[in-house]
């Protein structure tokens, strides 16, 4: 799926990781209570499922988009928020680098960043923060859905460390917008 469509259409966002063979989960508390009630909930890909490279490349596409978004929004940020935005840009780059390296180690070819992204116009800091919040929430949802499909245990650990970092970004962004920073006990991302 094209990343631009993914960004502009909530429905497309849900479809983004489905296209990589990753289903979209609902509330985790409910899932927890229901765990073990069927025979199709083991981690790792089932026969015919998406290989790790494809899942990681979908994640890399999200990270590349986040890098571009934080860079594009930089001129609209000020003061302490500007410094944090810069830090988050660097961390998204670290995620992209790690995913790219993992893809290469698996014999795959990392998805390259686009030459241009069709982001909405940012008229001020609040626009940037809200757009970043949307992206980060989507990333968290995507990683939570993708994690059980990843067959390599070490990669699952890495993905959990990245998604938790994205969740941390969300709390900072919410705080900068004057909103409650930790609104839910189960962070499943938002679309």
């Amino acid at each position, binding site marked *: 799926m094209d990343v631009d469509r993914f960004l502009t259409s909530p429905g497309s966002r849900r479809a983004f990781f489905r296209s990589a063979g990753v289903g979209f989960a609902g509330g985790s508390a409910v899932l927890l209570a*229901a765990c073990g009630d069927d025979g199709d909930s083991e981690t790792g890909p089932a026969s015919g499922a998406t290989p790790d490279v494809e899942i990681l490349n979908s994640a890399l596409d999200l990270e590349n988009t986040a890098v571009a978004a934080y860079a594009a929004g930089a001129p609209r940020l000020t003061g302490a928020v500007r410094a944090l935005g810069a830090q988050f840009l660097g961390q998204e780059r670290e995620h992209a680098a790690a995913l790219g390296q993992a893809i290469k180690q698996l014999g795959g070819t990392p998805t390259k960043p686009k030459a241009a992204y069709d982001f909405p116009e940012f008229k001020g800091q609040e626009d940037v923060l809200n757009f970043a919040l949307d992206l980060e929430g989507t990333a968290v949802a995507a990683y939570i859905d993708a994690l059980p499909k990843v067959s390599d245990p070490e990669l*699952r650990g890495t993905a*959990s460390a990245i998604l938790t970092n994205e969740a941390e970004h969300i709390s900072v962004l919410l705080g900068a917008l004057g909103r409650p920073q930790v609104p839910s006990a*189960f962070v499943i991302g938002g679309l």
Partner: protein
Amino acid sequence: MADRVSIADGEADTAVIAEYEVSRRALVRRGIAVGSLSLAAASVPALLRARNAFAQAGDDRAIIEKAVGLEQTAVFAYAAAVASGRLNAKSTAVARLFGGQEQEHADALTAALKTLGGTPPPKPTAPRDVPGMAAATGSARRILTFLIALEESAVAAYYDAHQKLKDAKLLSAGSAIMANEGQHLVVLRQALDLNPVPTAFATGKA
């Protein structure tokens, strides 16, 4: 990974990105320096046992049993922080909120554990039941520093669990809980004027 990003509208030019990078490095340096000082003052060594909580856990039931224990410990620690009277009004409200969320984790994990045929471990009933807690009561800073160490140990434990859990639904739920613990860390670090997100990979292993 590309070091430079091509932006369609041209607003983020090289100079802007360069300035951005300078401020980012400064912030990261400050976070590392302050964070190291803070960690040195905390009772972290005692918590190392909690960091390895899942190391000996062989199957999903054993992992979830350990996770219930961690969450029960967090519930107890936040309740003690609220009751201490050492926190200001804002931090007290935060501790109360986070304690409630830890209880939600504990409840959900306990339900999962029972489904797996397991039994929840005993809850802590005194500070001595929680490694490092008895020594972290003198001031708001010490309490918050301890809570940061506790949350980091939880993140580290869930990071390890992601490499061991077999059930996909437990894995997804573990991710949602681990992410929430990371968000707790953000608020606690901000309360101590620390860098709220010091690393790109939240492994809990500073």
